[in-house]
């Protein structure tokens, strides 16, 4: 029965105009992760090698998520069909990605995608929905121009869950190739800032943490998939 339900949900998601099938390929290579201009959690700036991977070009929308969870309730601040799904726990986000044979991005993958091919260290006003009143709410997931990898709204709109457990000083010991985060922890990392956070919070290297069972009106997610080097997911 469980397998039948799973197959049914995959079919629904694959045929419901979901953006999650629309992925950008991030090529293998090195990038500089972290920043020396922030708190100890972001320090030091350090070089990381990542194999190629795919990342959803868009945040998961309400329409996407309702196909997965019919009982899902949209938040008032993110209510349109193509606005990002919010008030989703890390566990629910993980389960959603899994049903599409995807996974949540690692923290390193998210940051590499966020920085773009040029390794940006700031937030470009024209690609990010941020620093606005709380009552402004979210934008549809494809509203603003994409970054250099063709990915939308990594900065601003909604915070995004990533897969890694959060450890404050992880960068002081993290592996230089395909870091996966600590093996255990109490909180997961979240990234990117939301529509009402000012620019500091949306900068590429900034790390934040939240217990995985928490839901926020300003927190959503997108999914990722390993590329050829890793043999896919």
């Amino acid at each position, binding site marked *: 029965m469980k397998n039948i339900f799973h197959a049914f949900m995959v079919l629904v998601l694959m045929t419901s105009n979901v953006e999650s099938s629309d992925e950008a390929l991030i090529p293998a290579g090195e990038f500089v992760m972290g920043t020396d201009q*922030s*708190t100890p959690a972001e320090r030091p700036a350090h070089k990381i090698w990542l194999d190629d991977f795919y990342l959803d070009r868009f945040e998961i929308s309400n329409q996407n998520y309702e196909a997965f969870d019919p009982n899902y309730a949209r938040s008032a601040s993110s209510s349109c069909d193509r606005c990002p799904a919010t008030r989703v726990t890390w566990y629910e986000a993980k389960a959603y990605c899994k049903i599409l044979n995807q996974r949540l991005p690692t923290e390193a993958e998210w940051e590499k995608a966020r920085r773009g091919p040029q390794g940006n260290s700031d937030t470009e006003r024209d690609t990010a929905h941020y620093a606005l*009143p*709380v*009552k402004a709410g979210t934008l549809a997931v494809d509203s603003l121009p994409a970054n250099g990898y063709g990915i939308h709204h990594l900065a601003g709109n909604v*915070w995004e869950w990533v897969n890694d457990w959060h450890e404050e000083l992880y960068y002081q010991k993290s592996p230089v190739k395909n870091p996966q985060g600590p093996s255990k922890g109490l909180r997961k990392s*979240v990234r990117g800032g*939301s529509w*009402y*956070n*000012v620019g*500091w*919070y949306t900068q590429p290297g900034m790390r*934040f943490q*939240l217990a995985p069972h928490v839901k*926020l009106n*300003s*927190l959503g997610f997108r999914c990722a998939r390993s590329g050829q080097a890793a043999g896919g997911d």
Partner: protein
Amino acid sequence: MASIKIPKSWQISEQEVTPEDIYLRRREFLGTSLKLGSATMAAIYGFSPFTNGWSAEPEQFSPSTITPEIIASRFNNFYEFGVEKQEIWKSSRKLQTEGWRIEVGGLVKNPQTLEFETLKFPEEERIYRLRCVEAWSVVIPWIGFPLRLLIDKLEPLASARYIKFTTFLDPIIAPGQKKRFWEPWPYTEGLRLDEARHDLTFMATGIYGHPLPNQHGAPLRLVIPWKYGFKSIKSIARIEFTREEPETFYTSLSPLVYDFDANVHPDIPYARWHQAFERIPGQEETVKTLPYNGYANQVAGLYL
């Protein structure tokens, strides 16, 4: 210039409320401070539920007891630096206030950046009660100047109806701004312009006879004695004049729980607390809360 001291309706003699050591230290601060101009213009204000005909029973509220500085300085809300009231005096030490600047913008004749050290207004001392929404209160001798003096200097446009205040943003030294990342930092507050111009609305630069320490909102903070304490924003870094009611930190987080006015009222539960009584830090007793925190005679007319 000669100074004329005009008694206010909420004024009582400073000797009636001010311990001698504080009185003497206040004179030192007023006499030597350069950043706020002539100390000879200082007027000394206080308040009294007895002289103003307030309804409180005298034995329930003793205005002659200023909260001891050791208590007022070790029991603070300043969520930028954490949620433990007893720790803020230590955790806020990292805030650097030298060279403090205040941006001025919005509906104002000359948008500009003010250097705090160059602000020059006649100083006063005012002894106000501060009523926290968490149902506790303190009695504090502030030093500063009426906000309306600054507003007049800034010359808001005729279309301006509100004033918005924003505190600093520096999550590197203020861990609360990072840990509670989902909140709309930096902290903001606002007033109607008629509230802001009211004689009781005060910009504090000092406390207990000396400049504000960081935990009290150095170098410049608002003090609005008839509103819950969270309206009295600390460490002001930006002032903006607006036509529409500005979104503030708490009204944006919980619009059904916090309203823009936030006037103290004992009959209306506010936020998570009943508001009929208040605790006095360092004492076991509680006292009745008064409408407008005891300043109804002065401010109730704003809300008719």
